[in-house]
């Protein structure tokens, strides 16, 4: 009995010490990160140091131990200046977005803080809306994105939008069409596009159907249903493959924009293919 109690106390002590260390680590990272926090730890977009510190230990644990994320080619993301991370969307709830943000904080040197372009419905939801703002995730409005890029920030964009995240498990890794807004922004601001593939998100939350009425009740377009009913993410190892930056020049031609969007989509598809192939090979290794 005493042994069990001792082990339990050791475990609690370990967890508390771990959380404390992670909070200290977060403080150090925030010193280096590209956010303009004021004396109270709030940046002009509402990002809060306290929220980041509070959530960092849990997010780091999810990143390192639950999803065991590996960020391959993350050195392709420029160390400074505006960047648009453009990738595939998946999983019913945005595990991919959260883990990609974490990869840029934990595994990129120097750490950078990507701003996610969130769908409008999320900003209407109580509790979710202020949480997104405090974590620096803003509504996907063109003017806002342009302003952030002009300030040299990293944007995280999923051009498949809600149709992408709402893919069913049977359609996993099959990309739907890309919207062209990100490319118009890239052409206007000169920001490089870094394509990336997120592998594992489709399996983490295997959506088999959408409960639309339930979703509407919650203020969302749908509620993802998994074989085990609730959309709780499974501990699937995830990998993020970052491609080399792509630079585009405006040639004033609408058809040309569509061609450039297709180039980015093809590159993301290639990265997905590489990621899936590597995953199979790793699984088959003795």
């Amino acid at each position: 009995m005493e042994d069990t109690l001792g082990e339990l106390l050791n475990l609690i002590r370990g967890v508390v010490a771990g959380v404390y260390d992670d909070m200290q680590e977060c403080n150090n990272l925030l010193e280096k990160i590209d956010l303009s926090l004021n004396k109270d730890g709030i940046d002009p977009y509402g990002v809060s140091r306290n929220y980041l510190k509070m959530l960092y230990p849990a997010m780091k644990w999810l990143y390192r131990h639950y999803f065991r994320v590996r960020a391959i080619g993350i050195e392709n993301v420029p160390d400074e200046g505006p960047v648009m991370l453009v990738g595939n969307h998946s999983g019913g709830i945005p595990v991919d977005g959260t883990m990609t943000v974490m990869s840029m904080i934990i595994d990129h040197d120097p750490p950078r803080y990507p701003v996610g372009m969130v769908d409008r419905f999320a900003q209407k939801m109580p509790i979710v809306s202020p949480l997104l703002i405090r974590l620096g995730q803003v509504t996907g409005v063109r003017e806002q994105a342009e302003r952030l890029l002009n300030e040299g920030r990293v944007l995280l964009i999923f051009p498949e939008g809600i149709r992408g995240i709402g893919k069913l498990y049977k359609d996993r890794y099959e990309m739907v069409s890309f919207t062209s807004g990100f490319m118009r922004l890239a052409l206007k601001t000169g920001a490089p596009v870094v394509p990336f593939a997120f592998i594992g998100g489709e399996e983490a939350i295997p959506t088999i159907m959408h409960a639309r009425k339930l979703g509407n009740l919650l203020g969302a377009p749908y509620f993802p249903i998994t074989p085990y009913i609730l959309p709780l993410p499974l501990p699937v190892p995830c990998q993020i493959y970052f491609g080399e930056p792509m630079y585009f020049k405006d040639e004033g031609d609408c058809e040309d924009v569509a061609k450039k969007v297709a180039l980015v989509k093809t590159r993301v598809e290639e990265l997905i293919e590489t990621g899936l192939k590597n995953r199979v090979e790793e699984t088959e290794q003795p």
Partner: protein
Amino acid sequence: MKILIVGIATAVGRRLAEEMLNLGYEILGLDIRPWPGVPKEIEITRADIRRKPAEEVFRTRCPDTVVYIAPAAGAAQDYDRRYRMNLESTRAVFEYSNNYKAKQVVFVSRHMVYGAAPDTSMYCSEDDPPYGGLTFPKLNDIFTADLYASQALWRYPDLNVILLRMVYTLGPSRRGALARFLKGPGVPTILGFDPLFQFMHEDDHVHAIITAMEAKLHGVYNIAGPQPLPLSTLIDKAGKISIPIPQRWYPPFLERFGYPEIFANSINHIKYSVIIDDKKFRQATGFMHRYDENQTLKAFRYGA
């Protein structure tokens, strides 16, 4: 230079008049409300801007510059009456100014003209569409007056028109819409939402209006102070307690306890942020706010 301040009895009007007087300007005032204890150097006429005595001030005193403080949001309980009053007053200010050869009109409006919605840009520039009427339908008169005033930019080519869209003020006077919202020990917020609020010190507010006037700007300009703060932080730093209320009961609660109509009628404002970008004004004038967000809240909290 002779300056006529229309709406001189408001908190901003009084402070503006005193500051301009200190700078050596000749100050005239027009307001239907009294200003007890007005400095003797300031000549005030108590009249409705739409009536003959007000026009007489323009005709006989011939001001060089007219500063019109934002139309009233809560002056009349009857919305229809207020709507007409605000638009007719705006029309009168510009017509008299043009007819009696004023050189410029400074129209002091509100940043809320851009509206607050989940899908509006967080930092609105002067080029952004004014969604205020859509997101705060019961304040439509204020936004319509703003847009009506902007017509004067082309309707009166001989008149220099400056339209300033300004954020809330806070300061030791504890007057103004945001100050009244923060008046009690508890401040009602909407459960599950915490928007960013933008405000500036009342001295900076006055300083910005004078800067715009002296720079003889032309057109529409956003004016903001320090960076915005979440409403919860603002309430906390003002020494108050946040009272989260479910959205359904929010307007009746505010009406019951006498909070400003501007908030009771615009729930979206307590849910979503209205943030403006004042880069254009700062670049045109070199304006710098003197009080940061903490100094402003401290001034409001301790009244000094």
